[in-house]
């Protein structure tokens, strides 16, 4: 019995001792942990639970480092964040800025565990990127509960500014509504009236399918059917056969990254284009086009908020980015990380205090945005970053004159039309918002998020940095 207890105690002591040291080296550095800033902030005694009360500002880039979205975000997003920090001189309001990163592997449990640890235990003030909507929704709840900031430059789900909206979150770059309105609308207008969906079966795919369906039906089209596939699927042959069997004019791909690449590749193998059916890639990144090659991808329509070759400003920044990222041009997600961090730092300088997330986000909404990548823009009351969005078409091999010369502009969608009207999103933060079908959902989400913050009712976030 004594021996038993001795063994247990020894093990626990070991565990605690090792956990103690985590305060210093700390943080889940994903991948090989390259190039994280050195910890300049003193984190004080073991397992420091205070917020950034210590001397610095910590930016956490939570992304997919090794999975199907790694190319469109991943290490590139970390680089983009660092570029923004370097531009600001590494300091804001007299405090040093540090960038750490981690891999959420597209799993909500991994992502939320990392985010929780970052926010509660490692003094992270703002989480950026998160290119997977299911993880983003979980992080959204955590930052709301802990009163920190979430700059969602990676995920697509419009719910982040809709029924799950939060005063701590800014949804940058793009969302499913913009995609539906852009690509979806354009394809329907040019004759694609009947649709069949191939959908990634999680938050993002479901939201995208829902939003595009709305656009299609409102334009007088019809959705003949759809099929759902697991995230990170490799074999789309049976889904493509069903799509073919439906005889729909348009096969809408409500998926992204590696899934989209595989679907398009296999569609080509199975000769899908030959019978007159068109593929509509509802979310396509330049990294996908690069992987597919122009023979396969040429002619695809896509909606994006950023293209590296759009103007001098984007070109200059993108070349700098490519120099740090293996010569690869940035995707809109990576561009969003840069712009988002840049604006966040401006807001912190204005608000003076980075530990109150709500205050910082208010400052972000107050200051109009301006950067060389997205131009001039604003942030709506529901957290939606508003900027123009563009409809591009992928060039064919002959049309492309230089490496990464992939897109030709079809149309610019101005900022006021690019995203959903805040009053219609069902977000409870917007005064006079239409009562959404699941108001309960929003209320629940906010209620639950009281979580660790001990805030009651609508207490403005007093900086609950978690110290007891």
């Amino acid at each position: 019995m004594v021996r038993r207890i001795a063994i247990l105690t020894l093990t626990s002591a070991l565990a605690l001792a090792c956990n103690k040291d985590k305060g210093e080296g700390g943080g889940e550095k994903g991948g090989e942990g390259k190039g994280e800033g050195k910890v300049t902030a003193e984190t004080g005694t073991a397992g420091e639970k205070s917020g950034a009360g210590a001397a610095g500002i910590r930016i956490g880039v939570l992304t997919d480092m090794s999975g199907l979205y790694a190319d469109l975000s991943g290490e590139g997003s970390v680089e983009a964040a660092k570029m923004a920090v370097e531009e600001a001189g590494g300091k804001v309001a007299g405090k040093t800025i540090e960038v750490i990163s981690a891999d959420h592997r597209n799993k909500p449990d991994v992502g939320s565990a990392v985010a929780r640890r970052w926010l509660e235990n490692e003094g992270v003030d703002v989480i950026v990127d998160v290119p997977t909507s299911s993880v983003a929704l979980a992080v959204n709840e955590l930052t709301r509960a802990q009163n920190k900031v979430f700059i969602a430059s990676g995920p697509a789900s419009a719910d982040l500014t809709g029924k799950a909206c939060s005063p701590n979150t800014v949804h940058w770059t793009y969302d499913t509504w913009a995609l539906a309105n852009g690509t979806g609308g354009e394809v329907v207008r040019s004759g694609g009236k009947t649709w069949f969906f191939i959908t990634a079966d999680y938050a993002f795919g479901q939201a995208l399918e829902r939003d595009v369906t709305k656009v299609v039906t409102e334009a007088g089209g019809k959705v003949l059917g759809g099929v759902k596939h697991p995230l990170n699927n490799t074999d789309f042959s049976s889904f493509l056969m069903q799509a073919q069997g439906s005889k729909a004019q348009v096969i809408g791909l409500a998926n992204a990254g590696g899934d989209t690449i595989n679907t398009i590749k296999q569609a080509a193998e199975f000769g899908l284009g030959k019978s007159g059916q068109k593929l509509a890639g509802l979310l396509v990144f330049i990294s996908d086009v690069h992987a597919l090659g122009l023979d396969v991808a040429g002619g695809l329509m896509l909606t994006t908020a950023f293209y590296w070759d759009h103007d001098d400003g984007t070109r200059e920044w993108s070349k700098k980015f490519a120099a740090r990222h293996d010569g690869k041009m940035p995707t809109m997600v990576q561009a969003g990380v840069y712009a988002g961090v840049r604006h966040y730092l401006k807001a912190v300088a204005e608000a003076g205090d980075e530990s109150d997330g709500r205050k910082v986000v208010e400052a972000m909404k107050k200051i109009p945005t301006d950067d060389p990548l997205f131009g001039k823009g604003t942030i709506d009351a529901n957290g939606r970053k508003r900027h123009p969005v563009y409809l591009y078409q992928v060039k064919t091999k002959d049309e492309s004159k230089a490496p990464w010369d992939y897109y030709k502009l079809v149309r610019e969608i101005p900022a006021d039309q690019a995203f959903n009207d805040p009053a219609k999103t069902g977000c409870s933060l917007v005064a006079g918002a239409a009562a959404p079908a699941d108001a309960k959902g929003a209320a629940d989400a906010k209620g639950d998020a009281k979580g660790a913050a001990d805030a009651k009712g609508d207490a403005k976030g007093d900086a609950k940095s978690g110290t007891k």
Partner: protein
Amino acid sequence: MTSAGRQRIALLVAVVLLCAAPYVAYPIFLMKVMCFALFACAFNLLLGYAGLLSFGHAMFFGVAGYASAHAAKVWGLTPELSIGFGVLVAAALGAVVGRLAIRLAGIYFAMITLAFAQMIYFYCLQTPFTGGENGIQAVPRGKLLGLISLADNYSLYYFVLAVTLGGIAVTYRAVHSPFGEVLAAIRENEPRAVSLGYHTDHHKLIAFVLSAALSGLAGGTKAIVFQLASLTDVQWPTSGEVVLMTLVGGIGTITGPLVGATLVVMSEDLLASLGGWISVIQGFFFVLCVLLFRRGIVGSLAHWWPRRSSPPSSSS
């Protein structure tokens, strides 16, 4: 001082240390360790004491997680009721699966449990209430007994500590009882046990259901702690993980799984910065343990550390 007195002091010291722990280390990490320690303990009840290797224990762990999450979020039950519901669901599942699987032995039993676990996984993947890949998010921590808010990590820690200790105590009681003795007999030589008149299937089924229920306790608690129930908890790598924990710690010992769980969770945490190396190291230790350290850490220590004046007990 008598041996019993020494035991009591050791126990007291341990309890004090456990109570002080959250002020030294990150409470969420500690709670994760405890949930997995309980899970491994429950698994070991079946493997170490009944001699049945189940390769699908994640189904109890994960399904209870979903059940508890659903109860807390959608029905608004208090945490102890939600977790209790999770335990019931896991036990019921255990009864059904156990009934069908108990007839088989050895490899076949392992394969059948794996097959069932996969079916449960696919069910969880498809059915809407689990949220598929999204999982059940924003699970409220709620108020214990409607009175004490568990939103705070510290209050939650003591609750989880109580639950875990309770679960371990139940395991201990089950093992050190006439029931436990019969189980040991069945493990050693089933035909003989049958010939002595014991209803072996009956005993094995009870052990299975108990193991399932305690795994459910661990899973439900975890869902409340992390406020999330996800597919990962019903996938077979989780089943594999608990096997690893038990193997490394020591099959057939009470403390073994606890040590194993602590080490595995700790290593995952520490090595998180090394990314993919965690799995490499886990795989390596798995192989190493199977080849050389079949007794696991605690088992090996028990073997080498000479017993002093402890009363003759069947296992340490």
